[in-house]
């Protein structure tokens, strides 16, 4: 029975995507990821001239933990993620209502299905891309396969730990703070009093160089224990009583009266506040990855002290910051507006304003990072770089995916177009930031094409039939 549910869920996920943009466009997505990984791998010998293999492997493991972290907040969203992904019409996700299947069984299948999809769509293609590249560069194929094995483990550890933390958050914020404090204390004690290096704590990486059965079991423990506990305590109950709220739309929209879209913005904030997880969604989807990146930067600073960390951080922050737009659009399809006199472009413009308001968080993080890294002299170029990359990548997201980035980016053609327009800029920004941060003062020039792209986007999406999801 359980296996049947998983099989049908996999089919359903496939059909959900292929019904939106066709079999081929979805099927090509992993191929494109593989090709990108292959191209990136071809530069490995060049990167090896500035970084050692160990440093590269360590960085890759961090990135995969981060990847796991960004998608692992199932516990937080629980029912809502099912709602958003499948909609009320879904027969499988909601089959516990009409069939003798528990919510937990459904969610376990959903979790396994999602892991299978992420492995097929991202991790395996990256592995194949890397392995294929070994035919052309002097890197051992076996070691690449082992590396990929460690990367999958890092991904699963990241996913499992955040699944655990987000499940705790769904029950009690206080409990989460207690757990995080204990975690931090244990981490600091291990590092400072037991002299255990951070690389030893990065178990999959550590196992690559010093494999041992105990490390393997510890990794399995880190993957399975938090996930199992999370599944046991998962909050997926349907509320028995209706939630009542005092009318606050107009009061809130009055606060945003500087914008002609004030009531749309007020609605966005009420959506964020009242949906499951509330601000926790921002914490786990945005602030948590940023926090981890910040931590990794300290490690990078140790590895490559010459790197102007705040500049690299600003570029990364700009890209991650654009993902707030994905969160804002995830709660709002165009369906409720179709019978009202509203253009798609109006909703997009209101989302941009909401995005800019929430981006104050990102700006604060940049300020804190600058102070903490003691790199005040580069704050202005970092700020310019952050604003430009964030607005530029947002404009491209909107042009290619409109109000549906979380869905349309799985269309291989759309994703390829996005990558082709954003990655060269990202590459140039990173290199220039390392060479001479002050060149970044000229970066706002990019805002001109960005605003042109935005104007084109409004026209494009007003003409386009909205996705029925």
């Amino acid at each position, binding site marked *: 029975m359980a296996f049947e549910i998983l099989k049908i869920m996999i089919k359903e996920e496939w059909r959900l995507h292929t019904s939106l943009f066709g079999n081929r466009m979805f099927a090509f997505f992993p191929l494109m990821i593989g090709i990108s990984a292959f191209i990136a791998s071809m530069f490995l010998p060049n990167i090896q001239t500035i970084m050692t293999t160990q440093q590269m492997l360590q960085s890759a493991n961090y990135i995969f933990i981060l990847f796991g972290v960004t998608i692992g907040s199932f516990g937080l969203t629980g029912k809502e993620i099912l709602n958003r992904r499948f909609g009320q019409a879904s027969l499988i996700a909601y089959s516990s209502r009409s069939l003798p299947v528990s919510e937990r069984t459904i969610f376990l299948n959903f979790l396994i299905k999602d892991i299978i999809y992420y492995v097929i769509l991202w991790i395996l293609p990256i592995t194949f891309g890397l392995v294929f590249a070994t035919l052309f560069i002097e890197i051992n194929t076996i070691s690449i396969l082992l590396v990929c094995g460690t990367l999958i483990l890092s991904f699963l550890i990241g996913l499992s730990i955040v699944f655990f933390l987000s499940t705790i958050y769904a029950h009690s914020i206080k409990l989460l703070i207690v757990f995080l404090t204990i975690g931090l204390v244990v981490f600091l004690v291990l590092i400072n009093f037991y002299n255990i290096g951070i690389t030893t704590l990065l178990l999959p990486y550590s196992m690559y160089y010093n494999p041992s059965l105990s490390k393997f079991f510890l990794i399995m423990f880190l993957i399975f224990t938090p996930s199992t506990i999370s599944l046991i305590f998962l909050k997926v109950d349907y*509320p028995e009583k*209706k*939630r*009542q*709220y*005092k*009318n*606050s*739309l*107009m009061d809130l*929209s009055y606060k945003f009266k500087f914008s002609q879209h004030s*009531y749309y913005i007020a*609605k966005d904030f*009420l*959506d964020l*506040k*009242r*949906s499951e997880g509330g601000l926790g969604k921002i914490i786990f989807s945005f602030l948590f990855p940023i926090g981890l990146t910040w931590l990794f930067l300290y490690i990078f600073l140790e590895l490559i002290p010459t790197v102007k960390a705040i500049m690299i951080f600003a570029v990364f922050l700009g890209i991650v910051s654009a993902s707030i737009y994905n969160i804002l659009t995830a*709660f*709002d399809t165009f*369906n*409720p507006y*179709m*019978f*009202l*006199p*509203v*253009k798609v472009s109006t909703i997009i413009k209101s989302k941009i304003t909401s995005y800019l308001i929430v981006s104050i968080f990102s700006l604060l993080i940049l300020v804190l990072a600058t102070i903490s890294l003691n790199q005040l002299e580069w704050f202005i170029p970092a700020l310019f770089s952050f604003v430009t990359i964030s607005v530029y990548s947002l404009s491209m997201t909107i042009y290619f995916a409109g109000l549906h980035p979380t869905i349309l980016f799985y269309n291989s053609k759309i994703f390829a177009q996005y990558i082709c327009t954003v990655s060269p800029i990202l590459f140039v920004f990173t290199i220039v930031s390392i060479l001479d941060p002050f060149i970044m003062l000229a970066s706002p020039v990019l805002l001109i094409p960005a605003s042109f792209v935005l104007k084109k986007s409004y026209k494009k999406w007003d003409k386009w*039939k909205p996705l029925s999801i």
Partner: protein
Amino acid sequence: MPVIKINNLTKDFGDLTAVDKVTLSIDKGQLFGLLGPNGSGKTTMIKMLTGQIKPTNGTAEILDIDVLNNPIKVRTKVGIIPEQETPPSFLTAEEYLEFVGSIRKISNIKKLSEQWFKLLDFEDQKNALCKDLSRGTRQKLMVAQAFLHEPQIAFIDEPLINLDPIIQRTLKDFLLDYIKKGNTVFFSTHVLEIAEEICTQIGIIDKGKLLHNGPITELKNKKQHLEDFFLKLVKEG
């Protein structure tokens, strides 16, 4: 004087023709019922007439406004109740009406909302989140949002399907009163009893083709039941 003019309207979805060369006009003050079996093209028709989807061929004018070129203008003038009620999940019922009021630039929205809460008897639900409302209450909310701005034409897709008999009666009386004031209603349904009871004009559609269009009095004068007429027409195709 026709307020809805449809000429040769066609919609293809790939190989399927959902609406096939429909020509029709509806005068001011009519309560027009578009009747047809499931999947006959009723919802597609309403979506085209309100500019939610583009026709493959043909033209439509609502209050002399070309729908194809001015869908937003049409939606400003008319009220629409979609087949599936979809108020945004995380607003309360009252906030949703205020939200619609803001979009439609209605000044006395608070007062109007209260009137609708009272008329459709769901005042006790006004602070509940839309996502937590029952289907019937969400349907009531969608009825309220469609009439808030007192439109001259209302397009209603399966209007009474989730409502209890008391509210059904209230809404029927409201619609009859609404057309008496010179407004027009275009509604689709497959519940023939409702159509027979309140419609002034009926159209019968099957497999995208309009099989019949005429005043309900024609049938009443011939002492013919709508159900018999409908079944005969649809069977003959």
